[in-house]
Structure formats: C-alpha cells, structure tokens
C-alpha cells in the first residue's frame, strides 16, 4: 500500500464516513449529549465561586474554562479504540486487512468524517460561550490561528493513543480495560475535571510534562489566552512532538502485532 494511493482514496473515505454519520444522526446526537462532565464540573465550581474567585477563576472564568473544555472535547473526540478491540476479538479485522488500504487510515477517515457533524452540535456551546464569557477569552488573533493546528494535534493524539491501545488487543485480552484506566488518569491530568492550575504545585509540574495536557488543556489554554506567543509556539511544538512519537509507537506496535494475528473469521 502506498501513501499516494491512500491519499487518493481519502476524500472518498471521508465522504462515505460523513454519509454514515448522517445516516445514524439520532444515535450520533445521543453520543454527543453523553459528553456532559464539563457541565457537571461547572455546576460545582460555579457554586464554589459564588463566594469569591478561586485561584484567579471567577464564576465567568469557570464558565469560559468548562465551555471551552466541552467544545474541545466535542471536536476532538474519537472512538477507534472500541471499534478496534471489538473487530480484533471478533475477527472482522481480517476483512479490513484484505483491502489495499491500511486499516488505521480507514479508521482515521471514519473518525475524522464525523467532525463536521460534531461541529454542528458544538454551535450552541460556542454561542453560549460567546454570550456568557466573552471577556474571559484571549484577544490575540495569532493565538486563535494557532488553535487550528492545536486542535488538529489534539485530535491526532487522541486518535493515535486510542489506536495504540486498541492495537494492544492483538497481544492482550483486556486492552479495553487498559483504555479505561488511561481515561481515568487522563480525566484528572488533562484538565477535564479540574483546571490544571488549581492543582498543588507538585501535581501541576507532573501534569504539565505528561502528554495528557496536550489532549485537552492546551487548546483550552490557547482559547483563554493564558500564554504569550513565544510560549504558545513552544507548547505547540511539544504537542506535535508527542503526536510524532505516538505515530511511531502505533506503527511499531501495529506491525509487530499483525505478525501474531491469525484470525480467519469475520
């Protein structure tokens, strides 16, 4: 399989994926609605901030933070790990391997094709964000421009980690549980539940060095204008370094895993 062939096939794959997402739109909406944790956390912090700001966050500050978090989560979501572990277990992966296209590229097209529909779901979130907490957002247009590669990086990193852990299903049975564990740690260290700068110093230092931050917190920080231009560029570079590393690791694990794969079914 050459990369050029994949690039030629990609637009068609995206169209097919989009059509699939539209066909199951009700189901799709329900999945989107179940992403409600940022709002639950917002309810708690809004109640806390009623008696005065917490660590620099006012009530509006929290609203801006958690609505941005919800937005980033909606836009960068992916589900490849569930599909991959199931298809490996049931042997359906054999069908995908027969096609002249790398299965991970096909999965990525399916997941990416849902982004426009996710964007539509996100429109009310953006409106509420602009309506309630406009003053809390960053003002530098360059940072907003950097949000695009940062979101793409976050999506890629999310997808690749899912693909990597999903591929582990070729080796171990409990890959889905492993991903659950990743989700739990990630909820804390990516800023999904609590803004990272509210953690004690020691925890913060760990959280800022690990990849979790680049899945979610970093694009949110850009939207809130928390860093200057120079620092933002450095962080973007770090994010894409993690992306490159995840790509390499996924590739290695995939290749080694396929050599062990021996299902005929499907």
């Amino acid at each position, binding site marked *: 399989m050459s990369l050029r062939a994949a690039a030629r096939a990609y637009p068609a794959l995206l169209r097919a994926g989009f059509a699939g997402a539209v066909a*199951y739109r*009700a*189901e799709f909406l*329900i*999945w989107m*609605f*179940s*992403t*409600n*944790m940022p709002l*639950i*956390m917002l*309810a*708690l*912090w*809004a*109640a*806390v901030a*009623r*008696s005065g700001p*917490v*660590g620099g966050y006012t009530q509006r500050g929290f609203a801006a933070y958690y609505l941005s978090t919800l937005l980033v989560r909606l836009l960068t979501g992916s589900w490849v790990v569930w599909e991959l572990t199931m298809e490996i277990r049931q042997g359906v992966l054999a069908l995908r391997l027969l096609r002249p296209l790398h299965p991970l590229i096909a999965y990525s097209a399916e997941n990416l094709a849902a982004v426009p529909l996710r964007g539509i779901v996100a429109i009310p979130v953006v409106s509420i964000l602009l309506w309630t907490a406009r003053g809390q957002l960053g003002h530098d247009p360059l940072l907003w421009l950097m949000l695009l590669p940062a979101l793409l990086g976050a999506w890629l990193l999310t997808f690749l980690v899912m693909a990597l852990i999903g591929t582990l299903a070729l080796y171990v049975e*409990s890959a889905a*549980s492993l991903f*659950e*564990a990743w989700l*739990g*740690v990630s*909820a*804390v260290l990516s800023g999904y*539940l*609590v803004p990272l700068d*509210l*953690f*004690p110093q020691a925890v913060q230092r760990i959280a800022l060095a690990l990849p979790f931050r680049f899945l979610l917190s970093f694009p949110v920080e850009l939207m809130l204008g928390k860093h200057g231009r120079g620092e933002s560029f450095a962080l973007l570079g770090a994010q894409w370094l993690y992306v490159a590393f995840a790509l390499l690791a996924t590739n290695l694990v995939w290749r080694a895993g396929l050599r062990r794969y021996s299902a005929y079914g499907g």
Partner: protein
Amino acid sequence: MRRALSIVRAQLRASMALGLQYRLEFLVEGGLAVLWMAVTLIPLLVVFGTRQAVEGWTFPEMLLVLGWFVALKGVLEGAVSPSLTAVIEHVRKGTLDFVLLKPADAQLLVSVAKLEPWRIVDLLGAGLIFAYAFSRLGRAPTAGEVLAAGAMLLGALLVLYSIAILVVSIAFFAVRVDNLLYLFQSVFDVARWPSTIFRGFLAVLFTYVLPLALMTTYPALALLGRLRAGTALGALAGAIAFAAFARVLWSLSIRRYTSASS
C-alpha cells in the same frame, strides 16, 4: 410473591456464578472501580483545599453524598444496566420470545438477568467513604438516622430502576437505544453533588423532572439527621408513583412487541 422471590434468588445465583467465572476480569475491573472512585474524589479534594464549605456543605457532609453516589452508581452499572442492555439486545434480535414464553413475569425475569459482581468493590468503597466522613464529623449516626437513610436509599433504588425500565421501554418503539442507557448513565453523574449546588433551570430539572440529585442528597441528609419527616414521606410516595408509572409503560410497550425472528 414467594414464587417471585425464589425466581429472583435463582436468577441472581445463576448470574453471579456466570460473572465469577472470569476471575482475572474480576481483578482488573475491581482495580478500575478503585481508580474511578479516586477520580471522583479528586475535584472535591481540590475544592475543599480552597474552601471550608460550599453552599452550606462541609467536606465530610459532601463525602456522604459522594458515598451514596458511588454506591448507587455501582448498583446502576453492576446490576441494572447489564440486565437491561440484554433486553435491548433481545428486542433487536427477536429472542425476547424465549423470555416471554416463560411462565413468570417478564419484567422480573429480565431485571435480574445479568450481574457484574466486581461492582461490589463500589459498595465497599462507599462504606469506606462513609466511615471516613463520620470519623471526620466526630460522631456516629444514630439507629434512627440509619433507618431513615435506608428508607431513602430504597426509594432512590426504586426510582433508578424505574428510569432504566422507562428507557428500555423505548426499545420497543425505536430500535437502537443501547446508547440511550449509556446517556442515562452519564446524566446520572450529576448525582455526585448535593442538589443545592444546582441553580435555576438545572435545579428544577434535577429535583422534579429527573430526581437524580435527590437520590443521593436525601439519604445523606437522613444520615446527618437533617431530613424532615414530611419530605422523606413525600419522596417515598413519589418514588412509588414513579415505579408504578414505569410498570404501566412497560406493560403497554411489551404489547407492541412483534417478534422479529419467526
């Protein structure tokens, strides 16, 4: 009635035996349950690092609410959801016929069809949270308070189960609703905070329409001895009415079931 009880006992034993076959899974899933409990606790630790009380709730008091949340979530995801997901699968494949043919109440049969025994870890965790909260409060609950909390817990379980039955009833009208059950599980996450945290529209929604916040708040208030008798009785009556409504809707929708297999 005695027959129903013996059916429940037999079903529970069978599903327990089925669940216990997978011992490694028991360990893995038990470990995950502990991890998620820690994740649930962390936001509270951060909040109470900056405040003494939130909306009149101190740290140990809020821990009581969280303890009930962990316990109820364990019941929901360990006993209610797995069984009812199986019903949806039955409806989709048309195999519900086999359940309906059995000489017992179908709702009873499907409600105890599947268990995930490792969720017992959640109940143990909730017990630990209670023990710690009361040691922080510096007192033990009286027998009356425990009794009242138990009654409130029964009401909460009834409502939780009824909502799940309502969701499953939808399966007879719209085919793909397994993610509707998932949606309910994620909406249930609001029950981790006391109901007074919510303001405005959300307060109305989670008190009267989907009484989720009350499910954990009332038992916690009962343990603290702050729940008024009138409120408690009202909540119980509401729970029973809700269960009756769910039962009626279940009977109505099962009449619509036309087998897909034969």
